[in-house]
């Protein structure tokens, strides 16, 4: 399949025209793009200003590092610099510069901590094997897109009998977060642009709550026509009061039942728990925790790390940005004291962060 066909300028302009036509029949509409990659792509395409004035795109909390508690970063910082622990951190690139409540992993690295950027958790097994005297901690952060890879790695470590590899788990799952957003009385979300790659794992069926609450949601991919088509579809559901509120426009990747093997693997390794989303609060069932069988790999237990403490840097409005209450450029610190080189909050530095997208693309 040639992805370039999903970037066709002529078709893009036709869809934008259709969006304007439908929007003329509607009042103010707030569409939340849940996924940070959607936020980035929308910014990169300069899409917001092409939409009619009554259609507002709100960035949601689908940025994994943005919602990771600040205490996760701070406690990992302390562990990485504690000579008794002999820790070597393996982390995705996004994690390096995100500010905790007090420190970042980049600061730990500068101070001499061993931190390596990896693109797959399996690299953490390699590091563990190469450094039998060190304790490797992998930062298990991310929504359902990333969880299967970590689950696979935990299982492999278990089967290989790796004894010096640990997982600091702060995985989050989307459906409970969606429910919290739908039922939040402060928010007025007309519809959701649903995350394409999370949906590839959990499938259409995971979003049945949208019909229960009668809120439109469209599963969309990340090419220009995917995003524009997704927005048009949400407006169509609203204008025509379609009975079925959930539409899958990413059928080339997303199936009704999702990736059954991946879902089973996640379920084998993890159980659902209540968890804290930074800036938002505790959401029931929104987190994952290693099951009893794999408890020995839990870094939080092994090193006594308190990773679920709430807190946000002083003056930071990331919480309001993550819920879509304000746009990033409405935060007092945006572009002044909070810039990517010196971020105050996580949303400015993560590659999926709303503030970073606004700063980078306007």
């Amino acid at each position, binding site marked *: 399949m040639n992805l370039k066909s999903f*970037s066709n300028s002529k078709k893009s*302009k036709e869809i934008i025209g259709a969006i304007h036509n439908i929007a003329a029949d509607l009042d103010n509409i707030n569409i939340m793009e849940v996924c940070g990659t959607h936020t980035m792509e929308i910014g*990169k*395409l300069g899409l917001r200003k092409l939409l009619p004035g009554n259609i507002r795109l709100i960035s949601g909390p689908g940025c994994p590092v943005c919602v990771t508690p600040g205490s996760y970063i701070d406690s990992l910082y302390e562990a990485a610099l504690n000579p008794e622990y002999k820790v070597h951190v393996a982390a995705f*690139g996004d994690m*390096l510069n995100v500010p905790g409540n007090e420190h970042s992993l980049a600061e730990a690295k500068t101070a001499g901590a061993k931190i390596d950027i990896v693109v797959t958790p399996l690299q953490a097994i390699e590091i563990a094997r190469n450094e039998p005297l060190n304790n490797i901690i992998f930062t298990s952060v991310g929504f359902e897109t990333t969880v299967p890879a970590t689950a696979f790695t935990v299982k492999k470590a278990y089967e290989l009998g790796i004894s010096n590899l640990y997982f600091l788990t702060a995985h989050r799952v989307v459906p409970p977060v969606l429910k919290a957003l739908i039922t939040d009385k402060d928010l007025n979300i007309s519809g959701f642009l649903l995350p394409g790659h999370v949906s590839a794992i959990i499938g259409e069926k995971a979003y049945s709550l949208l019909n229960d609450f009668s809120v439109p949601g469209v599963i969309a991919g990340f090419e*220009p026509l995917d995003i524009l088509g997704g927005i048009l579809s949400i407006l169509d559901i609203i204008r025509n009061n379609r009975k079925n509120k959930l539409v899958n426009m990413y059928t080339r990747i997303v199936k009704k039942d999702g990736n059954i093997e991946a879902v089973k693997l996640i379920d084998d390794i993890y159980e659902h728990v209540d968890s804290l989303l930074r800036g938002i609060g505790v959401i029931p069932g929104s987190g994952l925790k290693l099951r009893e069988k794999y408890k020995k790999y839990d870094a939080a237990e092994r090193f006594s790390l308190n990773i679920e403490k709430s807190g946000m840097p002083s003056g930071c409005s990331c919480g309001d940005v993550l819920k879509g209450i304000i746009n990033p450029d409405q935060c007092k610190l945006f572009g002044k004291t909070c810039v990517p*080189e010196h971020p105050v909050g996580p949303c400015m530095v*993560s590659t999926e962060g709303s503030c970073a997208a606004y700063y980078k*693309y306007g």
Partner: protein
Amino acid sequence: MDKRIKLSHGNGRGNNELLNNVIFPCLIPEHRGPHEDAGILKNIKGNIAFTTDSFVINPIFFPGGDIGKLAVCGTVNDLAMMGAEPVSLSVSLILEEGLEIIKLEKILISLRETCRDAGVSIECGDTKVVENGKADGLYITTSGLGVVPDNINLSSANAEPGDIVIVSGPVGLHGIAVMSVRKSLNFASVAVSDCAALNGLTKELLNAVPETKALRDCTRGGTAAVLNEIAETSGVTINLIEKTIPVPDVVSGACSFLGLDPLHIPCEGRFVAIVPVDKAGLALKTIKNHELGNAAEIIGKVNTKERFPVTIVTEVGGKRFLTLPPGELLPRIC
């Protein structure tokens, strides 16, 4: 000769052994006569361009090149971007204890051959050895001298409204090639570095279009960085058209996977040229006639200063600005 660099190769007899058995034969086999404390460049007349650069790339071998080739191209290209005909380089080596001699020889031969192809001599050099773990195999610093013709005046401050922006070829290959090896990313398509000495191409361009306003090679920070610097220095805004910017499929695919912007990815054999509008056609034709510029494109225009230094019209007709990259390029989570 030993198989690996030792600390003793940094001093006295050990250093002589290294120089006579490895460094001189690989770098300057044609040299006859004594090795003095400094080289003498005779009868160099005109406007002298002088530059320096250090190369700490890891890995030292990558698809399309190695640190030796890079050390020559980087400095030769800095001279070429000022319109200088490169004359001579210095080469300083910091060697890590334990570096295999066979790898060092390969890099030095590559360095020498790149100098030969670029028409630049090696006039002087230095060698130091550091303990194991203090360098990624080796680091190289090259300084370079060149002569700028009187009729050439290139500067990032020269861009004016109405000027045209040309890029000499597809962007991002060097950075993705290095990243793919560094992070063991086995892409189905292999990215090969665009590392190349550009002085032959720039000489042809400046002979045909001496009115060229600025040349900048798209190294650290990629195309976005150099265009932002030109726009800020000249007090203008550069407007780009996204669909005209050549990006190879392997770069756009890798960037999509890693969450990076192709315009932030460094190149080592590409430049942007700012030329007057009435010379744009000739400039493009001249660049495209050269093998290193055959995929050049006009990608934008210089306008009077707007709110942002560089803006880009996207493929769907939207407009956004193009910022400097944030610093270290880090692949994303999902």
